[in-house]
C-alpha cells in the first residue's frame, strides 16, 4: 500500500469538495423552492395548475438526469443567436449555471412528490379545525399545512438530499471538476482505479454521513414529542367541585 500516493490523492480530491458542496447546496435550495411551488400546484385542485405540474413531474422523473443536463448545456446551445438576443447566453454558456439549473429542475420534480405526500398526510380534521377558527386558505397553509407536511416529509427528503449530493458527480460530464471529475481524471492518468476510488468514496461517504446526521437532527428538533419547557398549564377550577 502506497500511503504517500493515497495522501496525495486525498488532498487533490478534497480540492473538488467545495464545488461538490456548492452544487449540492445551490441545486437543493433552488429545487426545494421549485418543489414547494409544484406541490402546491398539484394539490390546488385546479386542472389548469395541477396539469402542467403533473406533466413536469412525469417528464423529469421519467428521464435520466444526465440527458436533462446535456439538454440544458448542449441542447440549448442550438438556439445561441436567440439566447444572445435575450441576453441569456452568458448564463447558458457557463457549465456551472447549467448544472445548477438542470439539477434544481430535476430535484424539484422528485421533491415535489415527497412534499405532496406530506401535504396529503395532514389530517382533514386539522384543516377543518383551522377553517372553523376562521383562517383563510393562505394562513391555513402557512400555519397548519406546511409545518405538518414538512415534518412528515423530512425523512424522505433526507434521502433525496443524499441522492442529490451523489448526483452532483454528473456535473463532471460537462467539464466541472468536482470530486468525481477529479477522480475520473486521475484514474485515466494513473490507472490506479482502486486507490483513487477508495479516496473519493471516503469523501462521499463522509459527506452523506454528515448530511443524514443533519437531517436526523432537524427531524428531532421539529419533533413534537421533544420535551419542551412549557408554561405550567392553567389550573381549571370547576365551581361546585368538592374541595
Amino acid at each position, binding site marked *: 500500500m502506497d500511503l504517500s500516493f493515497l495522501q496525495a490523492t486525498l488532498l487533490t480530491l478534497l480540492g473538488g469538495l467545495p464545488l461538490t458542496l456548492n452544487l449540492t447546496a445551490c441545486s437543493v435550495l433552488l429545487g426545494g423552492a421549485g418543489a414547494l411551488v409544484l406541490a402546491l400546484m398539484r394539490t390546488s385542485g385546479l386542472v389548469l395548475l395541477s396539469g402542467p405540474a403533473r406533466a413536469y413531474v*412525469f*417528464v423529469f422523473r*421519467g*428521464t*435520466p*438526469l*444526465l*440527458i436533462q443536463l*446535456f*439538454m440544458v448545456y*448542449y*441542447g*440549448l*446551445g*442550438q*438556439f445561441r443567436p436567440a439566447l444572445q438576443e435575450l441576453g441569456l447566453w452568458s448564463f447558458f454558456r457557463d457549465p456551472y449555471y447549467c448544472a445548477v439549473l438542470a439539477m434544481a429542475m430535476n430535484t424539484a420534480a422528485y421533491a415535489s412528490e415527497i412534499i405532496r405526500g406530506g401535504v396529503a398526510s395532514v389530517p382533514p380534521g386539522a384543516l377543518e379545525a383551522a377553517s372553523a377558527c376562521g383562517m383563510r386558505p393562505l394562513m391555513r397553509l402557512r400555519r397548519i399545512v406546511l409545518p405538518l407536511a414538512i415534518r412528515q416529509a423530512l425523512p424522505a427528503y433526507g434521502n433525496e438530499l*443524499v441522492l442529490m449530493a*451523489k*448526483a*452532483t*458527480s*454528473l456535473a*463532471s*460530464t460537462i467539464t466541472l471538476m468536482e470530486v*468525481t471529475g477529479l*477522480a*475520473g481524471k486521475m*484514474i*485515466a492518468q494513473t*490507472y*490506479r*482505479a*482502486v486507490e483513487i*476510488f477508495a479516496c*473519493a*468514496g471516503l469523501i*462521499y*461517504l463522509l459527506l*452523506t*454521513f454528515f448530511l443524514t446526521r443533519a437531517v436526523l437532527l432537524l427531524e428531532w428538533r421539529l419533533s413534537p414529542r421533544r420535551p419542551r419547557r412549557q408554561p405550567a398549564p392553567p389550573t381549571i377550577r370547576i365551581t361546585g367541585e368538592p374541595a
Partner: protein
Amino acid sequence: MHVFDLFLGPNGWGVPLLLAALMTVALSVSGLAVGAVLGALLAHARITGGFIARTAADAVTTILRGVPDLLVIYLFYFGGSQILSWAGHAAGYDGFIGLPVFLTGVLALGVVSAAYQAEVFRGAFNAIPRGQIESARAAGMGSLLMFRRVLAPQVIRHALPGLGNVWQLILKDSALISVIGLVELLRAAQVGAGSTRQPFLFYSAALLLYLAITSVSGQAFRWAEIRSLRPFRRG
C-alpha cells in the same frame, strides 16, 4: 434538412436511435438480472448470516449507497482493465486489455442496484409468515426445495413493487454508461447531435424515447403486480 428526412428518410437517424434504445433496454435488463443475483446474496447474508457476514453485507450496502454511481462505473471500467492487463501480463501478453464496455456496464449497474435490491428482497422475505417456513421444514423440505416452492414465489410477489422502483432507477442509471463509450440511447443522441449540429432535436428525441421506455415498463410492472395478486383477490 427537414426534420422528417433527418429521422425517417433513407439513412435517417430514426433506426440508429431505436437500435440504441434497444441497447438501453438490454443493458438495463441485464443489469437488473445481475443485481438480482447479487442482491439476493446480500439479502441472504443479512438474514441468515453470522456476525461477520452481516457486518460485511452492511458495509457493502452502505458504501454502494453512499458513493456516486459514476464513480462505481469508473472503478469497473478502469479497474477491470487494470486487472485484465495485469493477468495478461502474467500470461506473457504485453499490452493493454480493455474490459468490453457492455460487460462493464452490466456489472456496474448490477453492483449499484444490488444494494437496493437486497433491501427489497429482505423486506419481501420478512413479509412471509414464519409458520410457513416451520411447516415446510416439518414437511421435510430441504433448504433448496423450500426456497423453490415456498420462499421464491412469495418473495417475488411481495418484491414486485420495490423491484419496479429499482428498475426505473437502473433504466435512468444506464444513461451513465454512455461516459465509457457504449452506444446506448444517450450516446447515440450525442453522436447524432455532433454530426448534424442539432443537439436540441436529438436530445429531445432521446428524451421522448426514454419517456416511452419508462412509462411502458412502469405500466408492465403495475400489470404484473395486479396479476401476481390475482389468487388473493376477494369478491
